[in-house]
């Protein structure tokens, strides 16, 4: 049964595996982080490819500004980023409102430091497939139109794709059980657009900034998907930094990180690229207290215990 040809095959298999392994260096080796590397990460709320492009540029910019090694570590789900922040695998993270609160509750002394101009005044948009026949409305009570419709959120832990929308739906008297079937959790804002556009779900909700940016890029077919309502404003995305970075990189490091972001200037073409990818005009300072409302809402619907 086991003729020499098969042995030859097995050896060839090992050999080719060995060769291929040499050709492609281990992925871990490429990202091997030295102890004095400032590791940043972000919640995976958009296409991973877009995130890689954006945070690659952010890392380069911070490296130049701060004079330390900066590495972006991609993470696959919301809870995993919070956890990595808690264990200290990453030093600073671009969190959503909810995940930022969850992370700070688990790391004593962690601070919300910087956010975009739009985050202080953030909105979600409810969208619908045009064929569903849901008319746009201005008042929150219009959300009752979702009753008996199929509907998808973004990620379970998304502030703009789940937490605040569910809060507003509750306020309008729409319970999840009023929807047709169970609500979906698409996983990301981009996927929410695509699923509603394709008609998989009649309606969905996502972060307004992602919506605007995809609209501007011409990636949305507005004949197929329309905005039906824009939520009131709330605080959302922000950078949260671990308190121990000052021990690692010296006192005043957090202040220097803040300065680096505040120095981003739309008039400078290199800066503008980053700002555009963030969908912002500029960065502003923020503080932990801005998120007290988010925390309250999260406790109310059980996302913080």
């Amino acid at each position, binding site marked *: 049964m086991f003729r020499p040809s098969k042995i030859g095959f097995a050896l060839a298999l090992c050999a080719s595996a*060995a060769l*291929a392994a040499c050709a492609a260096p281990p992925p871990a080796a490429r990202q091997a982080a030295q102890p004095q590397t400032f590791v940043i990460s972000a919640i995976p709320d958009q*296409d991973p490819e877009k995130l890689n492009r954006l945070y690659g540029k952010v890392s380069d910019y911070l490296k130049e500004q701060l004079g330390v090694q900066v590495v972006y570590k991609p993470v696959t789900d919301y809870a995993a980023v919070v956890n990595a922040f808690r264990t200290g695998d990453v030093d600073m993270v671009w969190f959503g409102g909810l995940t930022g609160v969850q992370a700070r509750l688990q790391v004593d002394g962690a601070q919300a430091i910087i956010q975009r101009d739009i985050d202080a005044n953030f909105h979600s948009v409810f969208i619908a497939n045009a064929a569903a026949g849901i008319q746009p409305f201005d008042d929150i009570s219009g959300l009752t139109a979702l009753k008996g419709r199929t509907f998808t959120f973004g990620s379970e832990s998304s502030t703009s794709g789940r937490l605040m929308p569910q809060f507003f739906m509750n306020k309008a008297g729409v319970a999840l059980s009023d929807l047709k079937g169970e609500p979906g959790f698409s996983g990301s804002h981009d996927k929410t657009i695509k699923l509603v556009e394709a008609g998989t779900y009649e309606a969905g909700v996502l972060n307004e900034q992602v919506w605007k940016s995809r609209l501007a890029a011409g990636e949305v077919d507005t004949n197929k998907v329309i905005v039906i309502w824009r939520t009131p404003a709330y605080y959302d995305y922000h950078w949260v930094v671990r308190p121990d970075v000052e021990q690692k990189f010296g006192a005043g490091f957090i202040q220097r990180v803040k300065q680096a972001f505040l120095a981003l200037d739309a008039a400078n073409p290199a800066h503008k690229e980053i700002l555009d990818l963030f969908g912002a005009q500029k960065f502003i300072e923020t503080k932990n207290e801005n998120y007290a409302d988010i925390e309250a809402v999260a406790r109310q619907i059980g996302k913080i215990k």
Partner: protein
Amino acid sequence: MSSSLSSTPRATTWAPQPLRSFLKGGRLVAIVTLLAVAWSAIQAGLFRGDLINVGGWALVRQFFAAALRPELSPDFLLLTLEATLVTFAYAISGLALSLVIGFVGGLLSSEVWWLSRRPHRQSPTATLGSPWLIARSALAVPRAIHEAIWGLFLVRILGLDPLVAILALGLPFGAITAKVFSEILDETPRDALHALLNGGAPPARAMLYGLLPRALPNLTSYSFYRLECAIRSATVLGVIGAGGLGYQILLSLQSLRYQEMWTLMAALLVLSGLTDWLSAHIRHALGAPTRLDVNLGADCAAEAAVRARATSGSRALAVLLAAAAVLTPLSLWYVQPDLGKLFAPRTTMLLGDMLRQMFPPDLSPANVVTLFSLSAQTLAMSVFAIALAGLFGILLAYPAAHPARRARGAMLAYSAVRVFLLFCRAIPAPVWALLILFVMFPGPLPGALAIAVHNLGILGRLIAEAVENADKRPAAALRHAGASSAQAFLYGTLPITLPQSLAYIFYRWEIGMRETVIVGFVGAGGLGRLLTEQLSSFDYGGVTATLIALLILTFIVDLLSTAARRAIR
């Protein structure tokens, strides 16, 4: 273990012993099973409205249309190659760990080891003692927890490190392997071992010469079966973030880039197919044609050492050992786990931290009520999924068994069904779930379907193998007596293979139960979905309670499955 389920040719009458004993012992099992399947269908929500989301068909069409145009740009092919190597390297590293655990654990939980240490092992009063019992029980818990859950916990303790994937794969696999290894060791004939022990040889040395060489073909053959499983599990761990093919497939699916996805799935198909094929050939050379012997002690297993052809067997073993010696360090180098983390003070601190958060479990009345209803749902998912997979598995297994005569039509059907089954099992259950969620609303049913499709691929192949190894004489005798091939099949082949097929189905039920969790992660229903919510809410008291519910459920299913397999023997 009766010979009735073994593949040893024995039954020569047309109404074989297996069927008769099956009908006798199995009637209760049959009735209970049918009732359970009916209940599970209702529980899983089969008869509830709002199942199919018609809006999703467009995406499904797009998905299948993309199969014709896979992404073939050099960059992406390179990425696919890299992802394939990562998955393979994780599988090998995890498997290596699991074999070490399996070997040590298998020895310590085998009867023969503890008996060998007793001076008068053939005496009427010889007993096993408590170390054996302790070893047995210590292995039960890691076995009951799915690799993905291990992964989620280890990542909290060890951080983002390849070590997590290796341990998440190696620990539960090690416990499963230990159980099977101990069974193999206990079933290996002990005459030579006893001769050596009676001559005053110490236990370890006596086993080295008297028992292990004889068990080795079966141990190796099972290890290869575990490699097939390890590749599937490494892919699933990829889906939850370890990287490799599973991760890339998830990314492509999340961004709805189907062409990329098909390229990745093709790579997975090739990797999985090659492993299965290699494993089948090596097993044959070792004289152990059965991929997996779930019937505890079939005498065919014990005879593998004798049946193996001397030269091909030992040469195959030598090649395997050489391959393992090369591939294991290579894989470890490729994934680069930080072994230092195992002993780092930070690890201990985080472990303590996590345990503090996990206890006490949230056993508030409201949560317990939720857990009960979700446990019922989860159980229903597993029953419904495996019933479906088993039914179609049996139907597809017959065309999937290698036809005796190489007629063109039969060969064509054989190849088509084999590729279909490979496709079903190569794609991890969570990816199936994501695809099914395009056209179905979230809930237990899509999860059950995903588990069903994945297990169909595994069961179909296992049963096909049972058909291939079955005694062909009864069917041939019927054909010679003028029966049509359909009649020969019904009276000759089916009765012989049915008990073994059912044993496989019950065995996969145990696995299906564990898999409910991972389809839950991607939004299908049951306890897995609850666990996802709790993990994303950092509600660790709740997580502990859910895990306890899962453990209890798993133990119940294992007990029922073992009892059912015993009854239909």
